[in-house]
């Protein structure tokens, strides 16, 4: 019974992930408040789709954090600039920088999405790992991998991957909210109710 609740809960979460992470502009987000009827253990079609980042080349989603203006432009202007040595007069560089995802990685993420959609999660994960070797600093890719593991019910791996995504995503990025939701769901699925509540609280800090 408990298991059922978890899986239904997980599906609802994924529905919300879908909406939170779909690449549509904010204006036409899918509505979250009316989840489609969900059969036991049968992912609804929409639910099984969503690596949170659409990887079609036309979408500027890969550079999302920049779009949303969370990054200090200064950090972007001098991508090659070496940090100065910590000598007496020079401060260290400050400000996170998220590199745009190269097309090679984006295409692999798209393949992963397609594979995951038809339940081939291992294959999807393999594509994402390849993509990560090309763009290891992409918070989107780490999150996608966390989502795939979640769908596989490989909950033990979810948290680490989502945390890795968090460590790379700027603090105001919606990716962080999703990551905390994933962590909460994975903890819950592993029977860590307290940890799940904490993670859910973290997620709520990002608003709804």
């Amino acid at each position, binding site marked *: 019974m408990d298991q059922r609740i978890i899986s239904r809960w997980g599906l609802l979460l994924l529905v919300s992930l879908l909406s939170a992470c779909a690449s549509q502009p904010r204006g036409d987000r899918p509505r979250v408040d009316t989840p489609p009827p969900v059969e036991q253990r049968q992912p609804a079609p929409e639910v099984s789709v969503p690596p949170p980042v659409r990887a079609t080349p036309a979408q500027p989603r890969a550079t999302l954090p920049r779009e949303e203006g969370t990054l*200090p*432009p*200064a*950090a972007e*202007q*001098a991508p090659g*600039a*070496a*940090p*100065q*040595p*910590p*000598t*007496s*007069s*020079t*401060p*260290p*560089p*400050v*400000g*996170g*920088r998220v590199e745009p995802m*190269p*097309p*090679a990685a984006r*295409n*692999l993420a798209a393949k992963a999405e397609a594979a995951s959609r038809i339940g081939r999660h*291992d*294959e999807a*994960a*393999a*594509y994402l*790992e*390849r993509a*990560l*070797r*090309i763009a*290891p600093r992409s918070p989107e890719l780490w999150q996608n*991998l966390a989502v795939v593991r979640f769908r596989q019910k490989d909950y*033990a*791996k979810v*948290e*680490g*991957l989502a*945390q*890795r995504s968090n*460590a790379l995503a*700027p*603090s105001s990025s919606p990716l962080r909210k999703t990551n905390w939701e994933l962590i909460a769901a994975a903890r819950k699925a592993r029977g860590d109710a307290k940890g799940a509540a904490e993670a859910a609280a973290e997620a709520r800090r990002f608003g709804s």
Partner: protein
Amino acid sequence: MARSSKSAKGSKAAAKQPRRRFTFGRVLLGLVLIVLLIAIPVIGIYVFFLDYKVTSQFEGKRWALPARVFARPLELYEGLRLRPENLVLELKQLGYRAEANGAQSGTYHRAGNTVRLTSRAFRHPDGEEPGRQLEIRFDGNTVTAVREVGGGSLDLVRLEPALIGSIYPDKVEDRILVRLDEVPPMLVDALLTIEDRAFYEHSGISFIGLARAMATNLRSGRVVQGGSTITQQLVKNFYLSSERTLTRKINEALMAMLLEYHYSKQEILEAYLNEVYLGQDGARAIHGFGMASHFFFGRPLDELQPHQLALLAGLVKGPSYYDPRRHPQRAQERRNLVLTTMAGQGVISADQAKAYMERPLDVAPTGRGGDTPYPAFMELVKEHLRRDYRAEDLGSEGLRIFTTLAPSVQHAAEEALLNRLKQWRDKKLEGAVVVLDVDDGSVLGLVAGRDVRYPGFNRALYAKRQIGSLIKPAVYLAALERPAQYGLGTLLQDEPISMADGSGKTWEPKNYDGQVRGQVPLWDALARSYNLPTVYLGLQVGMRQVANTMQRMGLRPPSSAYPSMFLGAVNYTPMEVAQAYLTLASGGFRTHPRAVRAVMTRDGEVLSRYPLAVERAFDTAPVYLVDYALQAAVWQGTGRSAANWLGAQPLVAGKTGTTDDTRDSWFAGFSADVLAVTWVGRDDNATTGLTGASGALTVWSELFKNIDWRPLELTPPESVEALYIDPTSGMLGSENCQGAVVLPYVRGFAPALSPNCIDQRNVLDRASDWFKEMFDGSTNY
């Protein structure tokens, strides 16, 4: 049988006695009938038995195929950090040949910043990659364009992975199966010309061939030609022992005919091409032309040239006698005989034969695809696989094992260690190198000693050595995890200390240079690897806390905690050290090193994948602060001689380690994407005279000079802010405060304002102004 023929002779003798003829004849007839009655079913059953043997074994013939172990495939895309030299290195590892335009499969051509090549098709665990003619452009050490010749630009291309070894069962027959339609017709022509001209006409045994062989043998007075058909040779190899008896010869003939009755010429030929013995590589027997091609020429069969194919066909007669590596003269004569015979039979023209005969043997110097050129890495792979696979399956099922080894990195690691060892001239000096991918823990290279091709003691995996100062980051990390108490600018005591160690003796650590400085900033103490401040810091933080930090970094917990632990009186292997530093390099995530990515069956079914798994072990901020100090270690501290290889202020971070009396020399360092741990020392634990800087660091630097890596830009996480710190007090300073330095601090944990700077007005406001300016890009600090 023999008995019945004797009876037949007896009947002729009996014919002279008419009286008894009738009765004797009847008896004889009866006897013959009885014999026949017995013999026919017996022969019938025997033939039936042979038939069963031939068909069941031929159809069920599963050669025991060793597991093939592959390196990681090189992926090419715009923006990839790779210098053309390293691409060429990878191509050579794949057996590519430099040729005018690189238009043939397995060839390449480099002209300055452009490399043209034709890749081979390959079935990867996640799909088929076609063979393509490609053009790769470079700018410095970056790929700027990947395009298909005659086509458009490509986002991503994956080369086939290099075969780096095989895993064998005890009895070693090695082969790569080929299909008949993959075999160059020239090879089949050469083979049939020299071994069995009537192959397509005979029905298993060839009397013409036999007669010809006998005539030849009689003429020369010895056995020069076997007269066996290809079918007979196959039967002999498949089903029979090598003894030379009449019974065996009869069996061979019978079975050859049965084989021909059941199977087409194509099937028999294909089986032969895969079965035939063609060479020996130590304990490994080379069977079939697929493997022979790799073994002798280092490339697949379909890429061989006619003169090479003729050599292979010639080898059938005596793989040992005509071994092209040991007896090149004989091999050349044999090859030329094949070519002459082919011309004589009109299979090729005389001109062609002449041209081919002028070619050298073109044999690769050492056998490829054998056990492995990387025994140290292979040991890790086997250890990895032992958990999930039985040794029998690894040795017989032809599994395909996809590993993480990066051949160009491995090559650079071997070269770096060997070059440096050569400089030091101590023949007993040994070393080890572990190279990991920072983000996913892939083992990119592994060197276990100076004899890199010899599978001896694997120092990288099993040599537990004192790690000396390599431990220090754990002490500092334990402190920096308490931002309310410690920051990079915190002043640490640098004074003599004396205390009782666990065994009741007095422990009096010293700084390496013997000096004491009173007080030193925390970051400087780590960067310059001062011992005394580290001991004071460790004692303040607590041994338990430091031990806990070590464990979270991924190290085995020390069996007991004692103060000399702060200076690295603990033993770990290079691989263990690498794993712990991986946690620092990845911003606080523990990642398991992995050597295997996936295992696939011969038919392309993925049996297991070894997925990427990471675990958060530390907050980003304290790890960032440690990394910052470790970059200072390379720029100004104990690792500064890296500049001799990498230029001033290379964008890497790292730590030297030296143990008592220079018994162990260590360096652990990383860029944004590659981490390497190097160790130099002697197996007998004698002193080497090498410090971390003069020994292991030089190996590390030489390695990093020759591989391609992304700079460690150390962009602070958002939880870190830059502060002016007054170095005399370790407290908050300001821009105008005399001698103030800027150091990263955990946000919200600025130390109190320094009394030395108290007269500066609005210090905090100014600091935040400066911050804003930086974000606007108007100040280039």
